[in-house]
């Protein structure tokens, strides 16, 4: 069989070395205006603190820089090129109006310490976004300060700790399902909680019996992702919340998968006490090759005294300001007020959607995942038959018989013009293929994806080596990660 690759074809791309390899003395991409104050002699001002040399910093011209980074950019896959079905990452369209409004002068260049009376625009953005997110989550209050999801988790758990401390009963551990993201246990450790694993039942949900057995007055919280990383909504959520609350524990929700819920169901309504959102997932701010993110934490009223400071407040004269007088606050989790530029983008996204658009977005995201599930059932093993929300998890069980694993299938998918799905996660599914299309994919794009995945499944049967050697169409083939880690080369050095 010859595979039919309809979405992608090869095209020439430019080679490009490291910028240091293009540098030579006397080239420049900068020009400063003439100095309008008297020149100074750095050595007399700085003495021995004066720096003499900037080592191997490059010297290149502007056109070289443009070509350098443009060439590098063409070696990347991106949402703008096609479907990016990374499970739990929510690779949706990043609207360009978000970028435009984030660059408006007074918004891009505001200084965090400028007087509040001339910061009302920024404060109004914080307020409006906060109100929207509180309504969307069904919670009572929010902090926008955390810089990313994991940072939000830390902030949330700090508040959990402060809450229990105020109750006079500090607790020792946090329960985390075996399907959770790695950030959950890593965060618990940073807040000095012992991590206790909670197993899933045969349907891929929290094992209620196990939870009842493990729940005690030593448990501070359960960190639950809902829908979980299998894309399954925890149908016993009310029971889970009740079990925790009965023993004084709190329900923490990892909002990584909030794209399955917005406008359809609110975590605050089903018993969640504290949760973080990822504005770079659910609310369309760009992933940018790994950041910046933003991880607001929404909470129920009982946690309100513990919010990081400062908190936004309306003053007597009707203007907005920051309140630092928060004696029970967990403190600051970062300097200033958070990744403000991401707030601007998230608010623009909410405005572009409105209530009807957000609901339709969620419905489309869930419909897309189910369409893919239906399309690939049979070709790939589906370890859990429980209904799927916004993402679906298959396993490589059928392909493994031919020695082909999830990572191989993922690499072959690249040749078909797609970014791979998330591989080998969640950990409870051996050889997982975790697929989240988001709402941003058209039926045509998904049909091509399903066709590609089926074609790969056939290749595995007929010519597994093609899949094992993939990708075949990229600038570089599979890279030697073992060598990279054994003898790390983490920076360029001039040839000596």
């Amino acid at each position, binding site marked *: 069989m010859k595979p039919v690759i309809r979405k992608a074809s090869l095209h020439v791309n430019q080679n490009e070395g490291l910028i240091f390899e293009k540098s030579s003395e006397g080239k*420049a991409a900068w020009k400063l205006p003439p100095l309008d104050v008297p020149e100074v002699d750095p050595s007399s001002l700085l003495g021995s603190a004066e720096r003499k040399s900037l080592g191997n910093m490059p010297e290149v011209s502007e056109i070289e*820089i443009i070509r350098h980074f443009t060439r590098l950019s063409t070696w990347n896959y991106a949402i703008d090129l096609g479907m990016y079905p990374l499970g739990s990452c929510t690779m949706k369209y990043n609207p360009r109006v978000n970028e435009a409004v984030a660059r408006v002068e007074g918004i891009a260049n505001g200084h965090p310490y400028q007087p509040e009376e001339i910061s009302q625009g920024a404060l109004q953005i914080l307020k409006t976004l906060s109100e929207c997110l509180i309504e969307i989550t069904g919670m009572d209050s929010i902090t926008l300060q955390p810089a990313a999801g994991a940072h939000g988790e830390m902030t949330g758990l700090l508040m959990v700790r402060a809450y229990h401390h105020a109750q006079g009963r500090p607790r020792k551990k946090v329960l985390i399902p075996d399907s959770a993201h790695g950030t959950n246990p890593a965060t618990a450790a940073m807040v000095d909680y012992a991590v206790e694993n909670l197993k899933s039942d045969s349907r891929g949900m929290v094992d209620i019996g196990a939870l009842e057995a493990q729940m005690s007055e030593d448990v501070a919280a359960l960190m639950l992702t809902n829908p979980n990383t299998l894309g399954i909504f925890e*149908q016993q959520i009310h029971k889970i919340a009740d079990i925790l609350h009965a023993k004084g524990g709190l329900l923490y929700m990892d909002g990584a998968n909030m794209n399955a819920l917005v406008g359809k169901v609110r975590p605050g309504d089903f018993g969640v006490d504290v949760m973080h959102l990822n504005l770079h997932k659910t609310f369309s701010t760009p992933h940018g090759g790994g950041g910046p993110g933003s991880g607001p934490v929404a909470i129920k009223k009982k946690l309100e005294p513990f919010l990081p400071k400062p908190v936004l407040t309306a003053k007597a004269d009707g203007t907005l300001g920051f309140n630092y007088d928060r004696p029970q606050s967990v403190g600051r989790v970062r300097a200033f007020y958070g990744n403000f530029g991401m707030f601007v983008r998230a608010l623009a996204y909410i405005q572009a959607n409105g209530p009807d658009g957000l609901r339709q977005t969620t419905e489309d995201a869930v419909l897309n995942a189910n369409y893919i599930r239906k399309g690939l059932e049979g070709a790939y093993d589906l370890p859990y038959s429980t209904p799927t929300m916004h993402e679906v998890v298959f396993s490589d069980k059928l392909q493994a018989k031919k020695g082909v694993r999830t990572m191989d299938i993922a690499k072959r998918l690249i040749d078909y013009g797609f970014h791979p799905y998330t591989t080998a996660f969640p950990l409870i599914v051996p050889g997982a293929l975790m697929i989240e299309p988001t709402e941003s994919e058209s039926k045509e794009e998904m049909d091509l994806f399903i066709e590609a995945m089926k074609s790969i499944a056939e290749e595995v049967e007929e010519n597994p080596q093609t899949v094992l050697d993939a990708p075949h169409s990229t600038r570089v083939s599979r890279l030697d990660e073992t060598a990279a880690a054994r003898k790390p080369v983490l920076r360029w050095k001039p040839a000596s």
Partner: protein
Amino acid sequence: MRYLPKSPADRQAMLKAVGIGSVDDLFAPIPAEYRLSRDLHIPRQMAESEIVDYFRQRSRENGEGYTSFLGAGVYSHYRPVIIDSLISRGEFLTAYTPYQAEISQGTLQSIFEFQTMICELTGMEVANASMYDGSTAAAEAVMMAVRLTGRRSVLVARSLHPEYREVLATYATHQGMPLSVAGFVENGRLNLAELEKSITPQTACVLIQSPNFFGTIEDVAAVAGIAHKNGAMLVVSIAEAVSLGIVEPPREADVIAMEAQSFGVPQGFGGPHCGVIATREKYVRQMPGRLAGQTVDKQGRRGFVLTLATREQHIRREKATSNICTNQALVALMVNIFMTVYGKVGLKELAKQNLAKAAYAAGQLAKHGKLLFSGAPRFNEFVLQTSEDPQEINRRLLRHKIIGGLPLKKFYPELGNAALWCCTELTTRAAIDEAVKLVGKTGASEVKEEKPKAGAEVAVEVVR
């Protein structure tokens, strides 16, 4: 909805393929009592033109058109146009973390170059791909020192950015890391005698900032000498990255925690900015955050991958060096492009202009007050003590669309009527001269002027 690429017919066809009658069936697993049967109470769907209008209005209410003398951890430097041209390319903007190396070589190579330039500028041997910001980078650098030394207490300079100190206190609370603070002396530098006295065999590290919060350049070698003599590590925070163009980097440090916002990143009302940690090669396995490394593919061609992932949360879970996952990648790319544009010569010239502007402003403002900490070198910030309350002075300046130096009473009551002023290459002599004139006019002699009108009221309200 204009972001959704499906026609009603597409949706019908898909529902049919899935084998259900209505999209609501897909939400049936959610207990009915939790399903929302009403619209969210958020602003209605807006046209793109309305969204742009909304943010332009907010911009006008947000210090647009003011001249500022604020620094204090966030600096106004010129941002070359090509930064936004390049980072706006969808291949950078809309890519994920480069885990799939074969189709992420652009991001990976740029991180590798970023790491290299950060090493060149800081004098360190390895740098990571970024941290959230300077404050969290400092806290994580301290935790790194705690792991490396097996000691737990931390000595922090009072001249470290006050908000960085607050963040460190938050991180330290549940790590069993006792913090103590060392003050500063007459010239603004760390009090070495106090350091000598407070450092103990339990001290994991000394954390200072240089240039420190007052703009004063610390005697890093002296601090390092005391720290190392006592078996402690030295962590140096750098908040004003442009200083590295003309100020000798803290080479004696064991870990450097940097905020690179000055390198081409908008002030953005405090974020997103770009933290970085740099250190010695021998400490790399305790460093948090992502790292790009060079390797080869099956054909022996050079390529880059994320490496040493066994330090990270997705592999090590609760035993990871940090919980950090998402970092500040796109902002690090801005920084990378900025460093490439200015390069070896430009960065030095840029830093020299900053030095000259601040020296001129300090000299002029000294006519109306006392320059504190003049006994030690400084970069582009300085502290002016006045007889008049700086809040009053600033109110006067604000009426002329000038934002004066940051009043320090909130953070350093012991300094009295003091304010932290900053000048960069963008501060014009004319602006400095006008500010100086206004600072000199005491409240009594100032003719009261009308306050500028507040911006138009908010057009969109949240319906509750």
